[in-house]
């Protein structure tokens, strides 16, 4: 068997040379000092491959046009098995790639590995860093949610403010300062058609240069025998890749990647924030007010990139031991402090409360269609801990019956009698009576009648502010005058779409004194506790727009 295998390999190698090529690649000689500090380049290449793979998988279920992009991403997240994992890997993989590429550069910088004759290797590396950032910039738009849209509006404006080339950049990015179908197509084209082949070519060139000059030695290496790349160094690279992959996989499984509401170009209240690795640029902008802004947005970052490119020509000294490179260490520390400080300042100044309550659209949002009584029913359902005895269609079993089963969905009157005196309606049942008022039990019954095996988990996603807000809505009998999701009266204005008509502060002031803000209004004033006010307003602002 083994002999046959060897003969097959020999045959293949004779025809293609593949075995010899692989062996030449693996048995490269490297300096004796090589070790764990040199693993980051391999990890970056690995992460690039993960991005390419997960990106292709996403593209298989993604429609690259505004609107459809959002719907297809929601389809990936809420209806496809493992879709959430694939998107999580792609999202966190992008962040991790930035981290690893920067670590790789820091290592090369500290060890002075960019010095003669390795200047070109370093410069290609800087271009690869820029390409990595370009992926982040273009990919940010592709979910086409509010975050993506408004973040990109800012980016394209910054590009447009660049001296001399600004107007051309604006045109290249697809329009006169507005983000629409053309910009979207350009960003998508860049992200999937232009950047990947560019990355592959640049990585090939980068690795070719590394091989041409060999891995940079440390002082003292010249007197030690050289090592082989395989297997000891490959093992170290593989271990580092494994650690990176384990972190990435955990993030993708555990950390939820949000999807905000569909991009709304009319939403004037939205405060855009870039991805975390661009926050420092965002903060730098604030240091340069008015006409100086172009300094912070274009000139300084441009100079920084230029400096990075010419590093090998600024530092032409001979090879020095890493521990003696005080200046290099200081430069890295300063850069880290500057970056960290700016990022921390940006995070600290991010306003906590958004106008509209944040809804996670990366999970099914069937709960948005519920009427206020049904939504309040979820609150009572949770308050009375119904789920400690009942399941809702997930196949497991508990003491009580599955609440999604049609057989227990009788009419509301029967259910209310059953809630009050379970044993009277179902002799022998172990269910205790529920101590709620008739109106409250009515809400609970309304919710349970809505439950089906298909929507149970989607309705369970209803956030706390919505159920609490619906409780206030029911308690204050808002439905006596207003309509929500087709439920209520038409005496006052319908409340769907309120977020598009009014600001949050207007609505909150209006509760206290309706007549002052809309003269002639029949609505009585309401004094609400701060929490009730916040919950009710958030709930009303989360209502879907009228069809």
């Amino acid at each position, binding site marked *: 068997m*083994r002999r046959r*295998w*060897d003969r097959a390999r020999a045959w293949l190698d004779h025809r293609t040379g593949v*075995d010899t090529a692989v*062996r030449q690649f693996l*048995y490269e000689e490297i300096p004796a000092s090589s070790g764990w500090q040199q693993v980051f380049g391999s990890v970056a290449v690995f992460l690039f491959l*993960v991005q390419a*793979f*997960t990106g292709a*998988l996403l593209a*298989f*279920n993604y*429609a690259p046009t505004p609107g*459809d992009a959002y*719907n*297809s991403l*929601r*389809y990936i997240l*809420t*209806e*496809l*098995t*493992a*879709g959430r*994992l*694939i998107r999580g*890997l792609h999202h966190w993989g992008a962040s991790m790639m930035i981290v690893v590429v920067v670590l790789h550069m820091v290592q090369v910088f500290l060890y002075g590995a960019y010095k003669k004759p390795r200047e070109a290797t370093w410069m290609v590396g800087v271009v690869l860093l820029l390409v990595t950032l370009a992926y982040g910039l273009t990919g940010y738009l592709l979910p086409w949610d509010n975050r993506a849209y408004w973040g990109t509006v800012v980016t394209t404006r910054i590009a447009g403010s660049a001296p001399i080339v600004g107007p051309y950049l604006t045109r290249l990015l697809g329009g006169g300062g507005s983000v629409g179908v053309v910009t979207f197509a350009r960003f998508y084209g860049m992200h999937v058609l232009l950047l990947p082949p560019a990355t592959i070519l640049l990585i090939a060139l980068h690795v070719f240069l590394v091989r041409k000059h060999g891995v940079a030695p440390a002082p003292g290496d010249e007197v030690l025998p050289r090592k*082989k790349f395989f*297997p*000891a160094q*490959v*093992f170290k690279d*593989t*271990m580092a*890749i*494994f650690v990176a*992959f384990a972190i990435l*996989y955990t993030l993708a499984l555990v950390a939820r990647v949000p999807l905000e509401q569909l991009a709304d170009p009319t939403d004037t209240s939205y405060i855009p924030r870039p991805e975390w690795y661009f926050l420092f640029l965002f903060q730098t902008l604030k240091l340069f007010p008015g006409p100086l802004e172009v300094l912070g947005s274009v000139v300084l970052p441009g100079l920084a990139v230029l400096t990075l490119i010419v590093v090998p020509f600024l530092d032409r000294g001979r090879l020095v031991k890493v521990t003696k490179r005080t200046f290099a260490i200081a430069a890295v520390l300063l850069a880290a402090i500057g970056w960290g400080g700016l990022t921390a300042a940006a995070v600290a100044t991010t306003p906590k409360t958004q106008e509209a309550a944040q809804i996670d659209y990366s999970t*099914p949002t*069937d709960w948005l269609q519920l009427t206020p009584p049904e939504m309040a029913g979820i609150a009572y359902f949770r308050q009375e801990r119904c789920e400690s005895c009942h399941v809702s269609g997930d196949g497991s079993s508990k003491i009580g019956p599955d609440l999604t089963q049609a057989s227990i969905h009788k009419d509301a009157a029967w259910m209310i009698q059953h809630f009050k005196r379970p044993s009277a309606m179902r002799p022998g049942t172990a269910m205790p009576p529920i101590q709620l008022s008739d109106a409250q039990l009515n809400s609970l019954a309304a919710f349970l009648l809505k439950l*089906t095996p*298909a*929507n149970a988990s*989607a309705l369970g996603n209803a956030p706390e502010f919505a159920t609490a807000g619906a409780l206030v809505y029911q308690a204050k009998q808002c439905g006596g005058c207003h309509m929500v999701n087709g439920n209520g009266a038409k005496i006052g204005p319908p409340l769907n779409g309120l977020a598009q008509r009014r600001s949050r502060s207007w609505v909150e002031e209006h509760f206290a004194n309706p007549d002052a803000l809309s003269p002639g209004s029949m609505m009585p004033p309401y004094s609400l506790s701060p929490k009730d006010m916040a919950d009710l307003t958030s709930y009303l602002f989360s209502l879907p727009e009228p069809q």
Partner: protein
Amino acid sequence: MEDVPSPIPIASAPKGVTRRNFYVGAIYGIGAAIAAALGIPAAVYLLFPPKIRQADQWIEIGDVTSLAADSPAEMTFRHNRVDGWKVSSEKATAWVVKHSDNSVTAFGPQCTHLGCAYHWDDGKSEFICPCHNSLFSIDGKVTAGPAPRPLDRYETRIDGKKLLIGRLIVPERQA
């Protein structure tokens, strides 16, 4: 990797687990684990059908009293077709037969051979597919031609005068 004739002879190659063997094993093992951790979810993602979150819907397609007994009629209706992330409203048709006992059968409008649209021939009292001359009796059975199975049927329900249809049921192959 010991079986690969290395161009550089290894100085010491003792039997059992050497450091080199351990390295090579770890490299292959971790590589395989990562490939599986990515490959299995990818296969699941591409091959598993999407979760159907639309509950079965009954669509009203017409007035059942307007039908004559044992005389198939083509009825047109609109339904929502779920196509990936898109839900589109589409025109669709069904061939509806009211039987003498007032029960109703609704056939899917496509021949079970290659999907051509068939029609009812009053003279021959048979459904005729013009593409390859498949013939179906009034109860949907294949009487001639290449069609492999009887006509597909919609689930039907009568609510007062209204005729409602549900899912399209594909029957087994006809013996």
